[in-house]
């Protein structure tokens, strides 16, 4: 009888006294809700096996038992601080299946909410990147400045993190009175604040010498491994779904994508920061071009049924291209909902980047992949 082929994690390995196996996570300050099994030889990582799956919640299966509107509140749970963006592809796909035409004003408000949420997510991510490098000021500053935009979202949607704002057919409610002025003021101040991060963090000589040339992901490997979002753009690939396949009104707005060539940990940490400034630009532009009045949602029939067929839509989230695939069989509930999440696609690059690195580089490389464990597990 031939020996069964075991998956890599279970394969019997030769014992080596030089090699020490470390379980980084799930209860470790340097991991999220996941485990990275790292084998080190002295200070060098010789093997790395990321082990996600600790927070699997079966969101996709749950979506098969609820109708198109009731799917909204639970599908945003995987990334609660980027909740508008994770709902965006689902809402776009559901609208196409239900055959809805969205009012112009709703499209602009969606773009504003999406960009605000991208900044909120990126600030949270940046705070943790700072504390992973031992920089406690960079933990507190983004976490504090994030409050500005959370307040804006609260004004807009009524909730601080889980907004449930996008629904098939538009958005849940219109903007409050004088929102435009408040939004412009807060966003301008926010942009001024994040520019100050350069002094304390991005131009810090210790940070640069620590993260430059660590965890280098070449352009070829970035494309081959299927990475997305800031990781892909940091490796020199100019790819942004907002530019390449514009959805809603992104083709009418004025913005640019940020690309860096080096593909190291520093570039991957800098791209989201530059993207936040572009987001501020988009918000200002959208506020200017937005129709000042009008309807913001299409009235839905109770329990609408989707057309037979399947739709795949994707958007650019805070972490990269986020896709949603819905199959409908003319019933009230979707037949199948599949989320294609950027976190999981970026995590695939982790073993390639960590092998040969020093243990001290592990947190910075791991978190620079813009990975959110809960989203990867869905």
């Amino acid at each position, binding site marked *: 009888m031939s020996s069964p082929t075991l998956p890599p994690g279970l394969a019997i390995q030769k014992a080596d006294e030089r090699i020490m196996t470390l379980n980084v996570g799930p209860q470790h300050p340097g991991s999220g809700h996941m485990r990275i099994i790292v084998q080190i030889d002295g200070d060098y990582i010789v093997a790395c096996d990321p082990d996600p799956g600790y927070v699997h919640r079966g969101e996709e299966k749950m979506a098969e038992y609820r109708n198109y509107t009731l799917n909204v509140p639970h599908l945003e749970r995987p990334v609660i601080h980027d909740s508008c963006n994770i709902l965006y592809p689902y809402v776009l796909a559901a609208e196409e299946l239900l055959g809805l035409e969205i009012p112009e004003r709703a499209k602009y408000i969606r773009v504003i909410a999406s960009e605000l949420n991208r900044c909120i997510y990126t600030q949270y991510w940046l705070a943790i990147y700072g504390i992973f490098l031992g920089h406690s000021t960079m933990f507190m500053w983004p976490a504090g400045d994030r409050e500005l935009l959370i307040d804006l979202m609260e004004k807009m949607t009524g909730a601080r993190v889980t907004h449930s704002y996008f629904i098939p057919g538009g958005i849940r409610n219109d903007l409050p009175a004088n929102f435009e002025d408040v939004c412009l003021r807060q966003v301008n101040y926010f942009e001024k604040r994040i520019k100050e991060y350069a002094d304390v963090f991005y131009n810090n000589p210790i940070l640069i010498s620590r993260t430059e040339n660590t965890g280098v992901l070449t352009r070829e490997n970035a494309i081959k491994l299927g990475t997305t979002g800031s990781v892909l753009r940091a490796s020199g690939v100019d790819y942004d779904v907002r530019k390449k396949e514009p959805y809603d009104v992104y083709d009418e707005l004025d913005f640019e994508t940020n690309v860096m060539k080096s593909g190291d940990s520093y570039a991957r940490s800098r791209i989201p920061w530059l993207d936040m400034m572009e987001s501020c630009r988009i918000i200002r532009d959208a506020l200017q071009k937005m129709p000042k009045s009008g309807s913001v949602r299409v009235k839905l029939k109770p329990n609408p049924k989707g057309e037979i067929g399947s739709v795949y839509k994707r958007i650019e989230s805070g972490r990269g291209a986020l896709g949603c695939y819905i199959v409908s069989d003319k019933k009230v509930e979707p037949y199948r909902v599949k989320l294609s999440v950027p976190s999981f696609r970026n995590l695939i690059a982790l073993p390639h980047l960590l092998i040969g690195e020093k*243990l001290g580089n592990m947190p910075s490389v791991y978190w620079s992949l813009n990975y959110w464990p809960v989203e990867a597990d869905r």
Partner: protein
Amino acid sequence: MSVIAPNFKLSEFVKSILDNIFWILLILTLIGLPAIQFILFYIEMPVINGELLTPFLALTWLADPSRSIPILKAFMATDLFRIAAFPGFGFAALIAAGTIFVERKMLAKLQLRVGPFYCGKVEGILQLMGDGLKLISKEIIIPAKADKPIFWAAPVLFVATAAAFVALIPVAPGWVVADLDVGLLAVFAVIGFFPIITILSAWSANSKFPFIGGIRALYQMVSFEIPLILSLLGVVILTGTLNLSEITASQSSFPWIIFLPIGAIVFFITMLAELERIPFDLPEAESEIVAGWLTEFSGMMYGLVQLGTYLKLYSFAALFVVLFLGGWNGPMIWPPFPEEIITEGIELGPVTAQFPGLPLFSQEMLNGTVWFVLKTVGVIFFILLPRGVFPRIRVDMLLDLGWKKLIGLAFVNIFIALGLLYAGILGPGGIL
């Protein structure tokens, strides 16, 4: 109100004391009388104003301020006072506690938050006490596979070594616990103990993350000890002594930092590394190795290590002040003691009280202490500041900095000192 802390009533408190007064008297008699007998029999009492001081006499004199001052002075002349209170442990622990408070509040101000706020009503001034109480009341957990005697001993040894370091620091003229002729060598010897304790505690925990942290601490401390020692040689060459009090006294007209700035910078950087402070806190890098060599410590064992760490911080800052900033030397800012209190006494209503033993401390000593504390607090401030500004560096960058750059700079500093000496500008004891 919570259930744990019921309403406090004075009447009930008094009643409980009255209920127990029999037992209090009994225990006082059973313990207090033998204690007095023990003191009378075994301990040599000082002779004050021609009278042999006995515990009974001391109790009698405490009621009279003019006679209690000689007792205080006699107590302050003992070694116990020097070790436990003024230049020793109590003084250092007080500065360490202040350091922790200032560190928290300053870092909080830097990071757009308020820091400790509620404990103690005023700006969270009692937060440290609350933390201490919490640590004392927590269970001490020892890992099952740990080498228990060494694991237990490590925090105690750490505090003891830090306290030994404190004992070598001269605070004011004549006020030092151990005035050694080889004071600086003793400092090097004490510093050499820290990596041993660290690696022993890390190894004895028998756990992976403490082990990696201990190895890192060992690398860091051993490789930074060499530039540390070399950077201080310049001062020794110029003063011609290893006695810390004499080194301080030699800086009466100018501090050595004017002539040896490179040495001071090298010493400051190595000091940060020896203290495991950001940017050199690799042995406790939380995102990589949880809490480094402190991971398995819990409860008051962790508290002891923290106490030792802050005592060490005070000692290093004080050493920097003694060697480079002139120690207790400074302009006389302390007002002279009013002589009329001795000659005329103080009028307390109808009575004029005489205080023959005053002043307790000389003006030079108080002035020196003030300058020493001011300078030390300034240095501590600069030790705390990088924590808000820098991220952590990596092991290879750390070793590169220690072995290549700092040792070279330390040698440059030695050559500057030798040049000053042979050019005849400076010699042992000051300007020639």
